[in-house]
């Protein structure tokens, strides 16, 4: 486990979570989570279901209290062994999985729910603010009069976001807000939400089980597994240099090969591959992303196509390798992707080359 530098609290940290644990009954859901989030950035907490990511978000929101550890917001402790600031005093925005719009209120009333009319300067001022907020999430002000059940799923999520933005929270928590939407709408809504939050300059934490969503949405990705954060870092680094094999395989397709690592060169069925800052030596598992393995005109590494699976823009190709290392008994099959299905008929022999560096994990 190698928490990246983003985890070190700095004066600019908006949210600092320190060694938080939480159990429900006999199940320990969080086993010591530490995370630091800078002001104004977007963090995605990604992990398989049951990993504890939603619980962490609920602790930050104030819906649950940690068993131990502390949570600091804006330099003030909001939860530790002796203190608990309840949710309604934290000024933290929260958008739930299904939006959780109040069914008995219109869209406008939902958005205005958190606004105190007296403090806000009367009915007209509230109406104006609601229209502004709806515009922020790209909804026509006419929507204010509609009922939540007249909206599509994506519109409901945007109303929920507008409602959460109404109180101008400095921290926004999004609990899988796109998972109930269908694929096309999910991407569009995600982009709209990200743009709105960036424009408002709100520190955002997104919880999701969708790796692609986490990688595309966030400035910082925290990978959660069995109640701990396995890795924290920027999306590119976490994807290309995962800290362990499980993280690697969770974040995307991975080609794992047995290799012999000497210094910073790993020898495997695909030849010699450079490894940056290796943490181990000798017999290792070498991880490459499938897109790093390309089909070449010629070369030393060859593979025979075993089977293919065509799905439109790409074809996945399962290959048996016979490179220079194959004689060492390191004969292996790998799966890569290619755009041209006609090149990759089963039985064809292809030349391969590897782009970039690999990552070594202890075998």
């Amino acid at each position: 486990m190698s928490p990246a530098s983003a985890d070190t609290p700095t004066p600019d940290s908006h949210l600092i979570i320190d060694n938080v644990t939480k159990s429900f009954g006999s199940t320990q859901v969080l086993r010591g989570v530490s995370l630091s989030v800078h002001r104004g950035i977007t963090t995605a907490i990604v992990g398989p279901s049951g990993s504890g990511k939603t619980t962490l978000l609920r602790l930050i929101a104030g819906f649950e209290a940690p068993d131990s550890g502390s949570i600091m917001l804006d330099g003030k402790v909001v939860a530790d062994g002796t203190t608990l600031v309840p949710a309604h005093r934290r000024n933290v925005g929260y958008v739930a999985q299904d939006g959780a719009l109040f069914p008995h209120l219109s869209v406008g009333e939902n958005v205005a729910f958190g606004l105190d009319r007296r403090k806000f300067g009367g009915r007209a001022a509230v109406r104006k603010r609601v229209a502004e907020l709806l515009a922020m999430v790209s909804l026509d002000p006419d929507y204010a009069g509609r009922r939540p059940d007249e909206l599509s799923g994506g519109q409901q999520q945007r109303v929920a976001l507008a409602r959460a933005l109404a109180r101008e929270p400095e921290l926004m928590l999004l609990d899988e807000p796109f998972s109930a939407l269908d694929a096309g709408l999910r991407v569009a809504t995600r982009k709209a939400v990200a743009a709105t939050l960036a424009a408002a300059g709100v520190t955002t934490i997104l919880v999701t089980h969708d790796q692609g969503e986490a990688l595309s949405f966030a400035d910082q990705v925290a990978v959660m597994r069995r109640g701990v954060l396995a890795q924290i870092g920027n999306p590119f680094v976490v994807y290309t240099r995962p800290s362990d094999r499980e993280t690697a395989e969770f974040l995307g397709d991975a080609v794992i090969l047995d290799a012999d690592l000497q210094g910073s060169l790993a020898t495997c069925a695909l030849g010699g591959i450079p490894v940056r800052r290796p943490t181990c030596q000798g017999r290792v598992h070498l991880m490459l992303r499938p897109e790093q393995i390309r089909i070449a005109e010629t070369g030393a590494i060859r593979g025979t196509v075993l089977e293919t699976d065509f799905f439109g823009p790409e074809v996945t190709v399962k290959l048996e390798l016979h490179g220079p290392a194959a004689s060492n008994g390191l004969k292996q099959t790998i799966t890569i992707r290619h755009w041209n299905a006609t090149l990759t008929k089963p039985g064809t022999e292809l030349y391969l080359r590897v782009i970039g560096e690999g990552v070594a994990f202890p075998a």
Partner: protein
Amino acid sequence: MTPATGMSSDPSNIRSKARSPRSRPPAPVVAAAVVISLATLIPLGFVIIMTAATGWDTAVKLIFRPRVGELLFNTVGLVLATIPLCIVIGVAAAWLVERTQLPGARFWSLVLAAPLAVPAFVNSYAWVSTIPSLGGIAGGTLVSVLSYYPLVYIPAAAALRRMDPALEQSAASLGLDRWRAFFRVILPQLWLPITGGSLLVGLHLLAEFGAFSMIRFNTFTTAIMEQYQSTFNGVAANMLASVLVLLCLVMLLFESRIRGNARYARIGSGVASRPPILPLGRYRPVAVVGVLGLAALALGVPLGNVVRWLVAGGADIWDLPEIARTLAQTLAFGLAGALLTVLLAFPIAWLAVRYPSWFTKLLEGTNYITSSLPGIVVALAFVTVAVGYLRPLYQTVPLVIAAYVLLFLPRALVNLRAGLAQAPRELEEAAQSLGNPPLKTFLRVTLRLTAPAAAGGAALVFLGIANELTATLLLAPTGVNTLATRFWSLSSEIDYGGAAPYALILILLSLPMTYLLYTQSQKAAGQ
């Protein structure tokens, strides 16, 4: 009311180490629910303690005698004759209305539920004034079936409506003709409404006093009442009550045994399409005559007789001051009872929905068992407890209202439970994250979203109270009359004319509630 979550509404920003709101419910709510549930155990405790205190010899002497044998024969015979008839009539009517091209199906759907608005004792009054010789098991069964078949019909119709037509289509594609599909696919799907409805019918049969007393048909309940009123013979009445309670518990146990826990709800996702509607072909006249006949017997006879007596009585029977006083009394009892019942049901329903555990299930279950006891048993228990320990409460309004609460708590519970499911925890959390303290959240979100269900529950409790006879007769202060007790005393004196205005008002009061019940069952079916 209590705050909506474990969070306190402490004015200071900071509070001491928090318990997880999910793992432990707030103590005041638990305490309230426990106290209410314990109070509902008074009648059952009374029967057990009385039976134990009577002594073995006396109990044997009082229980094993020809009189009890006759009552047992009558009561059990009535149950065994009425329930199957209610099932056949209820299911057949539901199927005709929901699944066939019966002319005017929507109209009949409502009309066939309407007899529920006619109290059984009014129905009995109508029949005995039509056929004065009516009596015995046959008479009891006739009146019971016509009064109580809607208890099977309404849930069966709702289930037929909600049933996934794909099941029948699958049956057809597997080679079953319509008749065999009905018996092998549709009928098993109706098992839950049939068993649930039959249990309700059975419990009503055990508890009914007025309808059977009117036609001089003796069951345990009428005998207990007679014993109590003629001799104040506490011990003999109590022994009869303990046999009655035993019958009641046997019925509950039997129903829970045969109900099973198979899954009958739709499996899989997607929106169910409308079920197929069968053409009746040459059976059409038969179906129309059947539905028409049922409506005539169950609704036509009581309404016709009430109108007949009203016409015959003319202006003389409208003792307006007395009617107004009785109506006001009924409304007061009904409203007070309904409000208090809903209020007391709230903590139990809330715990059962938000903190499901064996403990909250036990709390909830206690209330169902207690209120399935006949009103006469609850009344006897209250009389004994009040006379023995709380003398000032004897024959006071609070005692009557307390009995109503015990008898009708489940009606409020069932509704509140459904209502709370409309106000999920996520909405409360959303309100809190928008800056609303727990109490404000409870008022603005939880209470607001539960209000329609609470109103529905209150209406059903009101309906129960307006038509309640036995507990009111035993417990109400001397000289205080509800519509039901006034109707009862007039018709007992064979003043059928004088009783008619009260019957009319009772029916008119019940109609909107019955309509509500009917639409609720349709809504529960996703319509």
